[in-house]
C-alpha cells in the first residue's frame, strides 16, 4: 500500500486499525512499520477520532428502562385492542385474497355489461345492419 492509499483509508475509517476493512488492514499495518509519514498521518486521524469519541456519552440504564417500559405499554395497549393487519405485499395469503377480489370484480363488471347491453332482437338487428350498409340507397328509392 502507498501512502496516498493509506491516507484515503484514514480519511474514511479513522486512525484505529480495528475499524479498517480486513483486506486493507494488513497492508496498512505493514506500511505503518516502514513509513514515518504514514505514522504521522495516523496520529492526525486519531485526533479527529478523539473528538468523535465525545459524541458517545453512555445512555443511563434508568432512562433506557423508562423508555422501554413506555414502548412495551403502548404496544400492549395496541395488542389488547386487537391485531392490526397491515397487508404484506410478499405474503401469498394477501395475494390470494387480492386475486379473488379482483376476479370477483371483473366477473361482476362482465355480468353487468352483458345485462345492460343484452342481445338485440334479431329483426331490429337485421334492420339496423341493413340501414347502416344501405341507408342512403333506401332513402333514394323512397
Amino acid at each position: 500500500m502507498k501512502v496516498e492509499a493509506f491516507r484515503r483509508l484514514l480519511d474514511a475509517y479513522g486512525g484505529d486499525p480495528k475499524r479498517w476493512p480486513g483486506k486493507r488492514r494488513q497492508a496498512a499495518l505493514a506500511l505503518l512499520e516502514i513509513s514515518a509519514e504514514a505514522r504521522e498521518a495516523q496520529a492526525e486521524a486519531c485526533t479527529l477520532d478523539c473528538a468523535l469519541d465525545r459524541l458517545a456519552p453512555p445512555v443511563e440504564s434508568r432512562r433506557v428502562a423508562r423508555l422501554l417500559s413506555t414502548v412495551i405499554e403502548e404496544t400492549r395497549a395496541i395488542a389488547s385492542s386487537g391485531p392490526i393487519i397491515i397487508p404484506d405485499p410478499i405474503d401469498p395469503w394477501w395475494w390470494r385474497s387480492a386475486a379473488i377480489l379482483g376476479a370477483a370484480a371483473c366477473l361482476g363488471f362482465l355480468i353487468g355489461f352483458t345485462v345492460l347491453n343484452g342481445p338485440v332482437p334479431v329483426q331490429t338487428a337485421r334492420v339496423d345492419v341493413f340501414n347502416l350498409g344501405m341507408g342512403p340507397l333506401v332513402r333514394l328509392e323512397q
Partner: protein
Amino acid sequence: MPASVDPEEGSGAEDDEALMRRVAAGDHPAFQALARRHFHRTLLLAERMMGRRVDAEEIAQETFLRIWQHAGRWRPSLGKLNTWLYRVTVNLCLDRLRRPRDLHLDLMEDAEDPGVDTERQVAAQEMSRRVAAAVAELPGRQRAALVLCYHQELTNAEAAEVLAISVWALEALLVRARRTLRSKLKTLGEDLGETR
C-alpha cells in the same frame, strides 16, 4: 471509543429470527424480549444521529412501534434483524432531519466528568459542543455513515446495507464527512491537548 454494549444483548441471529416470527404472530412477550435486547443500541444510534434527546427518544420508540406493527414484513433473507432495525431508525432520523428545526443540541449536557477541575471541565464541554455542532451540520447521509461505522461499530458492508448503497459509496460518504469535520475543527488538536 465505542459505547458500552447492553449486557442483555449478545443474541445470535437465530434467536432474533425466532423471536421475530413470534412477534409477527402477535406474541407480546416475544416483542418485549426483542425490545429489551435491541432498544439500547437503537436509542444510541438515534441520539448520535439527532443530537437531541427528545428527538432520539421519540424515534427509538417509533422504531419499536413499527416493529410491533410490521414484524410480518421482515424476512431472514432481507438480512440481519439489526440491519433492518437500523435502517428503520436511520430512515426515521433522516426524515426528521429534513424538517426545519432549531439547532439546539443537548446531547452533551450530561457528559461531564466530575473528576476534572472546573476550568478544564468548561473547556472540555466547549470542545464537545463544537464537535456536536460540526457533526450536526453534516448532511444526513454523511452523518449516518459516520455514526454507523464509527459509533455503532458496523462493518462497512453492514453500514452500506443499512443505507442501501454500495461499499464504495459508503466510503465516499465517510471520506467527505471526515474531511469536512477536520476542516471545521482544525484547531482541535491543540485544544484537545489542553483538555485531555
